[in-house]
């Protein structure tokens, strides 16, 4: 696998696995309106994943987008670990979405400047969707944070619990550095300052307390995941793996 393929798979897998988690909300939302909103976000992310996987597939020349999605094992997936944790309650899902939406916004804004035209175009398209998602998730963070005492307690806990997964957003390993050098990739470390600022803005409006930085989960860039990913993939990949000759 070439460097650029591996690099693109990180964001492709992130959007794919997050989309998969969000799709589990179907028919379980706190209102019909939210059911539609969450499946709308899931669909957008799936579209982003599809666009990115089609590009990797084109670069690779042999493996199809579906094969990337349905035939790789856990150790070959490079999504952020934050995507694979369980949905929990609505507050847990919203807090995760909020934190990653801000990351996506900043990441795609930088990826737009990529020397790689396809990545740049994909970033531009995705940015429109991300700004809508962020509007939705930040609105909810504020309403839950500044709603009832019960909602405040719940969403504060969501924030505290998920904080340790946000470190991965800003890591720079050898591959990141190489892609940055070639003016294809993004300087993730540089995103942190703006990410902090935007997160704090909303947390203030939501009257929530930003958690202290502590131990940060890591490893997804090397294909190291939580125990959750295996279960997601078992479910997601079951049909194509059970019927390898079938076309769907």
């Amino acid at each position, binding site marked *: 696998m070439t460097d650029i393929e591996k690099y693109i798979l990180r964001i492709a897998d992130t959007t794919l696995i997050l989309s*998969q988690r969000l*799709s*589990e909300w*179907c*028919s*379980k*939302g*706190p*209102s*019909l*309106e*939210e*059911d*539609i909103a969450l*499946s*709308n976000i*899931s*669909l957008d992310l*799936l*579209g982003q*994943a*599809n666009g990115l*996987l089609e590009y990797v597939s084109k670069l690779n020349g042999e493996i199809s*987008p*579906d094969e990337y*999605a*349905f035939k790789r094992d856990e150790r070959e997936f490079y999504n952020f670990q934050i995507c694979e944790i369980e949905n929990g*309650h*609505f*507050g847990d899902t919203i807090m995760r979405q909020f934190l990653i939406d801000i990351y996506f916004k900043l990441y795609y804004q930088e990826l737009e400047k990529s020397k790689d035209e396809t990545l740049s175009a994909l970033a531009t398209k995705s940015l429109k969707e991300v700004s809508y998602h962020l509007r939705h998730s930040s609105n909810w963070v*504020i*309403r*839950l944070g*500044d*709603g*009832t005492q*019960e*909602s405040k307690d*719940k969403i504060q806990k969501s924030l505290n619990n998920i904080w340790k997964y946000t470190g991965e957003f800003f890591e720079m390993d050898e591959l990141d550095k190489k892609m940055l050098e070639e003016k294809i990739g993004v300087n993730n470390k540089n995103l942190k300052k703006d990410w902090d600022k935007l997160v704090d803005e909303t947390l203030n409006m939501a009257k929530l307390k930003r958690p202290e930085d502590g131990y940060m989960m890591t490893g997804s860039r090397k294909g190291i995941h939580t125990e959750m990913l295996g279960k997601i993939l078992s*479910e*997601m990949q*079951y*049909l*194509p793996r059970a*019927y390898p*000759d*079938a*076309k*769907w």
Partner: protein
Amino acid sequence: MQEQLFQKKIDAEQKIEPKDWMPEGYRSHLIRQISQHAHSEIIGMQPEGNWITRAPSLRAKMILLAKVQDEAGHGLYLYSACETLGISRNELNCQLHQGKAKYSSIFNYPTLSWADMGAIGWLVDGAAIVNQVSLQKTSYGPYSRGMIKICKEESFHQRQGYEIMSEMANGTKEQKEMAQDALNRFWWPSIMMFGPHDSDSPRTGNAMKWKIKRKTNDELRQDFIDKTVAQAELIGLKIPDPDLKWNEERGSYDFGEIDWDEFWDVVNGKGPCNEQRLNHHIKAHEDGEWVRKAAKAYAEKQNS
């Protein structure tokens, strides 16, 4: 006097709007019919939503997700139309949870394989389309406009289903068996969707007089069967009805007798998934209570 004017409007194919005078029977019939329709869309999200995470290709996943999202949307259009008749969505939810409201019995069957996604799109949405096209001309304005919007969106649903069935019927041996099995399980429940025989349907009289309904149960059922048999034959699948036969004189298919015991059992709560569907709906509603309360509390703080 008002009743006469009302009936005159109906007979002249004019629409009745929310602020118009209407007989209490007309209002209550509509509330029951529209809410049943709305509940069906929402409950229908469950059997289909069951397979989103297991869709076998990226394209299939996208399409199914979009379809189920549409169902939620359709439910919302219909609840919205129903609310214009003076009942709240909350009350409608309560009726559903207390078992006082019905929804299409087809959704009380489980989805056991991916081919069921094909069968549901093709047959269930197909049956719904036959019914809905007819309802576009219903006399109540908001309901009619809702149906027109829904019909525009519905046709991709049926195509999605038929495409799945067609691919599988022409795929591997296992795929073909899966597709035939799905058809075998969903055929009879699909034609049961049109309800009891006209002769056993006491409300049909008023519904036709008030132009709430434009065609009878049996008419719609025959319509659906005539359209669908050819579609099955085209892709090499067999309808599980030994009495199915083309009747040259009528220009329609003769078909076997429906198992009315099964029909009434499932309608009355004794189907394979009735309890599961309702419990799922109740749980989602209860789990979301704290969220809805928070939204309201936040809004009140802004207004004060």
